[in-house]
């Protein structure tokens, strides 16, 4: 419960800052503050590790209600179908290839640390 309270708390602070007029999204503000708190040691990793791991691992569950909403979006999807499909596919390929290519150039010589030094869970 402590882990969840901390995450909910940071999100609430993000919401508050956003309402006060900070132009970044609430979740991103909460994330940046949380990251700063982890780096300065204000929040200890072990307080949040389990809850955060659980949430990140099962984030797909949280998308289900939104994705089910597609069933009532038929009109919007039909009207701009071409734009939506073209934009999705072209942009995906462009990002994959430019990011992959640039990363190959800049990060292609990186030798990995031992696996298992840190894990996501």
């Amino acid at each position, binding site marked *: 419960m402590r882990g969840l309270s901390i995450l909910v708390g940071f999100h609430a602070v993000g919401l508050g800052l956003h309402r006060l007029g900070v132009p970044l999204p609430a979740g*991103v503000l909460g994330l940046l503050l949380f990251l700063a708190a982890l780096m300065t040691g204000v929040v200890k990793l072990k307080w949040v590790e389990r809850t955060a791991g659980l949430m990140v691992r099962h984030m*797909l*569950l949280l998308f*289900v209600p939104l994705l089910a909403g597609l069933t009532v979006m038929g009109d*919007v999807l039909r009207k*701009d179908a*071409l734009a939506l499909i*073209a934009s999705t596919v072209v942009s995906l390929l462009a990002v994959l290839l430019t990011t992959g290519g640039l990363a190959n150039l800049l990060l*292609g010589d990186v030798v990995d640390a031992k696996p298992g030094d*840190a894990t996501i869970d």
Partner: protein
Amino acid sequence: MRNQGTQRLTEIVLRAVLAIGVTVALYWAALHTHRRWTWANPLITTTAAVVVVLYALRVPYETYRLGSAVLTYLLGPATVALGVPMYLQGMRLKQSLGKLALVVLVGSLVGMVTAGGVAWMCGASHEVVASAIPKSVTTPIAVEVCEELHGNPAITVAMVLITGLLGSALGPWLLDLVSIRHDHAVGAAVGTSSHAIGTASLIQRFEIQGSVSSLAMVMAGIFTSVLAMVLSWFWH
């Protein structure tokens, strides 16, 4: 009056328990299905099953959306939770952090320009263009960016999900085709383009790719929201 209030509250709680209970149960079943048949993406199977249940019981989507609001709300704290993989992977990949950030920044910019640009060239409305711009980043951040740009979050969600599914299915294959095989390059490309869904598929295959990918995904979300902030100053 009090009785009516109590009844209304009972209704809300019951609706939430049912909607969330059914969703979680179907998700659990989908995870088991996924273990048996790995091609069955749990997000698609869960959603398809939910849609079938709603249809069979004649429950309108709006009722289900209200009932499952807690799950959608949790995307906010889940965005904050992304700080943990970012912190862990950031420590682990310390030596290449600056270069990775540069790569992801360029990738995020390319993603926003191509997504918005192509939609605009196809003659889409302002609303659709605005909804397309954040489609490469993780859903909770994409929805918030879309709202900042006055787009329609429903469109963004659909595009984000399709991008993620396509990216996780085609990404590693396409990169292999053009000889991009270094773990860090594959991770950066999939994380920047296909957010959490792509990252999840990489983690199952190669741990280090998933690690770079999850870092790239969070960085892309942050960069995109900053770039969108700048964009909205000029656009509106």
